[in-house]
Structures are given as C-alpha cells and as structure tokens.
C-alpha cells in the first residue's frame, strides 16, 4: 500500500513537473497582430486611441500598471515604481523607483524623468496637448526629492488617485528631451519599455525588437513584434484565420468569433469580457440649433436603445444599455432606474412623440438636415451610425453621414468643425472619477468636444469624488447622470461594448480585461510551439 502511495506521489510529481514545464514561458518568436487604426502622433500624453497603445506601448513603461493577469483590470501593480506609500492625511503619495532602469539610448531613468513626464501631463505648457490633464486636477505638485523618489502632493484626498496613475498612456519620457522640446515625442519614440523601436512604415506596420537591457530580467519573451495596420475587420479575421497573425487586441464581433472557431477549432482560444467602452454622440453646443437643449434632448429621445441593444448585439461588438458607468459595476445605475431617464424609456413611440414635440417647440422644421461625422473605423462605428441615422429619421430629421479617416478624425472634432459627431469613452479602469471626467466643462477637460461649460455638472463631479460614503457617492453620480444625459443632454450614450478576443492558442501570457488599452506592453506574452 505504501509502495503504491509512493508510486502515485512520484507520478503526480512528474505530472506536475511536466505541467509546469509545459506552462513555462518560452522565449523567441515574433508576435504579429493587426491594428485597426493608426495614431495621429506618437505622444501617449496627447492621444486617446488604441491605435497608439497597441503598437507603441511596448516601447514604454509607466509609473504603475494594472496587474497583467487581473481579468477585472483594476489591481495596481508596480512598474517603474517598485513601491509606494500614502501619508496619513491621504494627500501625499511617495513612490520609490526601480533602480537600474535604462532608456533605449542607454541613459539612466530617474525621478527627474518621472517628474518631467507628469508635469507635462498635469501642467502642460501652452501649445502642448494633454488629453487627460483633467484627471489630475487634484494634484498640487510633483516633486523629485532624490533620484529614486517621486512625490505627488494633492490638494485634497482622492480615492481614485492611484487608479489614475494606472493609465497606460502615461509613458515615462526622458526629462532632458522634454526640456529641449516638449513636442519631441509627438514624432519620435524613446522609452524604457521591453521592446525597442525599429520602424514605422505609415499605413503598413510598426516593428519592435526585444530590448536586451530590459530591467525585468528574463523578459520580454518575444524576439519582437510586428503590428500591422488593417482597417477592415474582414482582413483582420482573414489574417488570424490564415495564421498570418496571432491576435487582434481590440476585439471581434460574435460572428467573427464563431467563424474563427468553426474554421480553426482548438487552434483558437476565445477570451471574452464586458468592455469599458461606449460610443457617445457629441453635440457641438456652438452650432445652432444644437445650442438648444430641447433639440439635444430630442436627439437622445429618438434613440430606441432597448431595441438597438437586442439587434445590434447580433452584428456588432455592442450589447448593454448604459449610463455613465459600465452596467453591473458598483456605481452603475440599475436598469429600472436608468429606464426612467429620457432616451431610456421602454416605450419607443412615447419617446419619439416627445422628441417630435421638442423639435417643433424649438422651431426645428420637419426634415431638418444636418451632417453626422463618424470615425472611419468599421466596427462598431459603422453599424451604430446606420442605426442612429435611421432612429433620427423616424423623428423627422434628415441626417447625412460623413466618415473621416481615423488619423484625421480628432483633428476635425477638436477644432469644432462638426454639428453632431461620434465620440467615445473608453476607460482603462472602471472608476467614476476617470469615467466621468470626460463630461466636465471644456475649460477643465479639453477632451469635451461638445464645447460646453456646465459649472453645476463640474460641482457634482467634485462632490462625488470627495464623497466619503459609497451611498452618498452613488446618489451624486445619479444626479450627475440625470443632468448630463436628460436635463441638459450634453452627450448621448449609445450602447456599451462587449469585448471578444479570439486568438491563436499559441499566444500565452496575455489576459483579457474590460479595457483594450491594458496589457499591451507585451512583456509577459510568449508564443507556445
């Protein structure tokens, strides 16, 4: 009996060893992945598109990162900062930096570089773009008391400050370069990341090769990567299906997933997650008649989101009807309550009748025409655009769609050269402060393309951010949501996305999260044989 037990123990040990060996990361290989969009510039602090993150994040590190193996995508993990402490009054955050980290030009990374990068993000000088500076309004100053320490001093306590440092866009740049030219990183690449930049052939691809001096010894596992720009999802699916690419990090439609699984069987692994992304309709408050809140409200009332959810979830990467928080998350408004907001009513005919009444009251004639500008990314922008234009047609609006190339899209929107346009809110982490700052007045948030100022909304945002109890915060978020989406109808929500990533089963060490901005540093990714 004892002998049998010993044999079983040996067999179990051997099996375990085999399993461990089978799962041990393997070095080598090139990861090839399609990217559906190309960024306008290389500056992470300025841009807000996955088209920048997917091909260019592997060249950089951030101060902190989201744990690459956390499927919830919320757990902070060290990156260039090894550890951190918070003062008792909650207003001072001290970060100890990793030693021996080198930029790709061989120079040492120190606290001076972190300070310079965050100063650029939080306090950008005139002429320097920083899309997310509103997220750091709570920061009073950034200090670098010694080469290995960075201190953030806050004006008041903030429950979301650590979450805001998890932004994958906050690349750490070299201070000396920034001192000479704050805009240098818009056209150049030089970081501390696991891969070094080889080339970017516009319209074609980005190449990266393994950084042999990477601070996290043994990583990255890949010899390099090739990010191939492919706008059409059919071409992306064909690349995966033909095993010319291994993964597309953004996501595919349910139909694409089914087709790939049917064609490749076990060669395909599917990872799915709710997606912290929603397409918004931004309405230019500077253009008539959209300066009238009755017109904006009519636009939201015209959308039958419940029917849209049922139908579009079959053909596009969208699913749930949502307010300002990802449905099902702690601060999201429950559906029964959300359905009381204008535009969320379950009676579509009643909604449309009210929309028509408001348009008439505002003096907007039946058949009024306007141009809806949409971003030239087929999924899900195209099906949602078709859906909305038809919904608006049903209340007597005649809408023409103008599709703009992704690289030029935000240039047009930022200039205010539009009447009504598609915008998006994609978070890298589900947290009300980060998800809702998008809607603050334009003087607090340059990414508010509606160009409105609403001090009441700003005040509600600040109050919820400082709220000490969860219930109080929830109530403030509900009030914020009601003002944003119903009373003022500054922005229109469409439908929450649903993320589906079918990838080659050879791709290991990558975990899906609710954000397609996370887990693109590629340091943990490896290719099985």
């Amino acid at each position, binding site marked *: 009996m004892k002998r049998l037990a010993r044999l079983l123990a040996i067999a179990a040990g051997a099996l375990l060893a085999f399993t461990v060996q089978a799962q041990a990361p393997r070095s080598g290989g090139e990861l090839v992945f399609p990217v559906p969009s190309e960024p306008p510039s290389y500056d992470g602090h300025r841009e807000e598109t996955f088209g920048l993150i997917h091909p260019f994040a592997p060249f950089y590190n951030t101060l902190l990162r989201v744990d690459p193996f956390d499927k919830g995508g919320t757990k902070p993990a060290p990156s260039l900062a090894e550890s951190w402490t918070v003062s008792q009054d909650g207003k001072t955050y001290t970060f100890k930096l990793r030693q021996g980290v080198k930029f790709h030009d061989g120079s040492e990374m120190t606290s001076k570089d972190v300070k310079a990068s965050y100063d650029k993000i939080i306090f950008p000088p005139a002429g320097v773009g920083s899309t997310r500076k509103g997220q750091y309004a709570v920061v009073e100053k950034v200090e670098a008391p010694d080469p290995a320490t960075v201190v953030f001093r806050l004006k008041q306590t903030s429950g979301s400050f650590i979450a805001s440092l998890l932004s994958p866009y906050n690349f750490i740049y070299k201070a000396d370069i920034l001192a000479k030219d704050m805009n240098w990183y818009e056209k150049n690449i030089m970081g501390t990341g696991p891969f070094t930049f080889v080339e970017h052939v516009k319209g074609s691809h980005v190449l990266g090769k393994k950084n042999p001096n990477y601070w996290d010894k043994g990583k990255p596992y890949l010899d390099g990567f090739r990010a191939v720009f492919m706008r059409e999802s059919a071409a992306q699916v064909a690349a995966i299906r033909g095993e010319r690419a291994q993964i597309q990090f953004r996501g595919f439609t349910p139909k694409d997933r089914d087709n790939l699984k049917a064609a490749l069987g076990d060669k395909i692994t599917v990872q799915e997650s709710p997606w912290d992304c929603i397409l918004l309709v931004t309405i230019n408050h500077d253009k008539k008649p959209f300066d009238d809140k009755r017109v904006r409200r009519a636009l939201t009332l015209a959308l039958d989101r419940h029917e849209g959810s049922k139908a579009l979830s079959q053909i596009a990467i969208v699913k749930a009807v949502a307010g300002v928080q990802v449905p099902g998350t702690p601060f999201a408004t429950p559906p029964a309550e959300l359905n009381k907001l204008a535009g969320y009513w379950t009676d579509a005919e009643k909604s449309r009748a009210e929309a028509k009444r408001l348009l008439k009251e505002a003096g907007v004639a039946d058949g009024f025409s306007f141009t809806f500008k949409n971003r030239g990314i087929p999924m899900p922008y195209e099906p949602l655009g078709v859906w909305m234009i038809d919904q608006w047609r049903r209340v007597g609006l005649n809408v023409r*769609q103008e599709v703009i190339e992704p690289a030029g899209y935000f240039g047009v929107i930022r200039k205010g050269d539009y009447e009504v346009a598609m915008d998006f809110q994609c978070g890298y982490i589900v947290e009300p402060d980060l998800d809702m700052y998008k809607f603050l007045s334009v003087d607090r948030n340059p990414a508010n393309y509606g160009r409105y100022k609403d001090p009441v909304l700003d005040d509600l945002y600040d109050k919820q951010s400082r709220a000490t109890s969860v219930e109080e915060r929830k109530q403030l978020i509900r009030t914020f949501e009601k003002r944003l989406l119903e009373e003022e109808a500054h922005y229109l929500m469409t439908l929450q996305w649903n993320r589906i990533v079918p990838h080659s089963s050879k791709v290991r060490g990558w975990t899906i999260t609710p954000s397609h901005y996370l887990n693109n540093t590629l340091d943990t990714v490896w290719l099985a044989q």
Partner: protein
Amino acid sequence: MAVTPQTVEELTRAEPRRAGWIGAVLDFIRQRPLGAIGGGIILVMVAVAATAGLLAPYNPLENDYAAMLSAPNRDHWLGTDAHGRDVLTRILYGSRTALMVGLGASLIGAVFGALIGVGSAYFGGRVDLVVQRIMDVFFAFPVIILALAVVAILGTGVGNVILAIATPMVPRCARVVRSSALAVREMPYVDAARAAGFGHRRIILRHMLPNVMAPLLIMATAFLGEAILLESSLSFLGLGVQEPTAAWGLMLRGAAVEFAESAPWMAIFPGLAISLAVFGFNLLGDSLRDALDPRLRTQ
C-alpha cells in the same frame, strides 16, 4: 488608300438608311444586336433609377431589425441585410447612385478631357509638349490608385467620388481627342476660320470640338461602365459613397462580408447588379465604337 472591289460592292449594296432618329435606332438594333442588348440594359437601369421611388417596396433607409438577415421571401424578394433593410429596395435606389456617379464622372472627364485635348492639338508646339507630359504623369498611375489618391485628398462622399473617378478619365479623353483634333486642325475650314480672323476660343469650340465628338462619345460611353465599377470599388473600400446612402459597392462591404456564408444574398444581388450594369455599358460602348469609327465601318 486603295478601295477594294469588295468594299465598293458592299457599299453600293448597303441598304438605304431609315430617316429620323427612330429609324437610326432601328438600324442600330438590326446591325448591332449586342449593342442593342447593352442599350436595353441601360434603358432599364435608367428607368429603374427614375422610378425607384415608385417601384421600391420599402424605404431604402428604413431599418427593420425584426427582419434582419432574412433570406429571400415573399415580403423581401431578395432578402434583407444586417439592419433589416430590403435588399431589392436598396438595389433599385443604388442604380441612382451608380448612374449619378457614372454619368457625372464621365461628363466631367469628357468635357475637361476634350477641352485639354483640342486645346493641346490646336496650339501645338510647346503648349502641346507641356500638356502631354503632364498627361503622361497622370497616365503613370493606374486608374484606381489615382482615384484613391484624390479621395484621400478630398475625402469621401458622392461629390468627391465623382471628381475622383473623373480625374483619371481626363488624360485618357484628352489623349484620344488630341489625336483626332490634330487631323481636324489641318482641315481647310479651320484655316478659313483662322483667315477670317476668328479667335482661338471660337475656332476651338465652334469648329474643332464638334468634329471630334465621335471618339469622345465612344470614350465616354466606355468609361461609364468603368466609372460604375470604380465607384463600387471605392465604396467597398469604405472610401466612396457613405452609409446609409444606397449604393451597390457599399452593399458588398461590412456585414455582407462577415455574413457571406450565412446570408449570401446580401452580396450576390448587388454583385449581379454591378456586373449587369458594367456589361450593358461595355456592350453599348463597343457597338457605338464599331458604328461611329469610320475605319471599322468600312472594314
């Protein structure tokens, strides 16, 4: 050129032509049955485009998600697309887009091509040299590449697509028209016009241009089919006409590709419409060339 006895015999045996345009049409049908078929297809297309509002069973922009991805049935003869829009309705309305883009591009291309070609031949010398080298630059690019470049500069939309397709047509028309205009330039009536002291504009527009219309017409007709195909290609690539406008090329992209296996009607019927239209214009273009080209007429 010596005239062969057979040619003389043929010419003398030729049946007398019928009078009036109806007679000319009947002659064309009898002598060029393939061209007549092409003309018939185009006539049907024009009629459909003109009466799409009466013929179409649904609104081309109306989404009906209860009927999305329906196979052809009694209610939707050619099925529905991913938004529940009736495929037949969108094909009928799509003929308007195809004709608008095709005719618009051909007209612009032919007018500018003719003016450049005749002007280049009339002035000759350095003007001709410079103009023709510029035309050579345009000739260096394949038609689709040139159209893509123009769309990239101007942006998408019906108007811009018309200009994008007309752009590669201009040098082609200019080259063909120039070769005819070079011969016309030497005609006595052009010399007479010059001797009478007429200005360049009058000589070009009144005396030369009408006499190079035959090759121009052939060129424009042949280009119509190509323009429709180009519009479909640009729209398929997402660079042409934009949703929700009904356009054949647009109907072939997006969900039509994704659902090609489970809902093939979304791609098959618009594909057939494109093929038929291009076939019709090519047949008519070839027959017109045969009928109007004097060299081919005497062979």
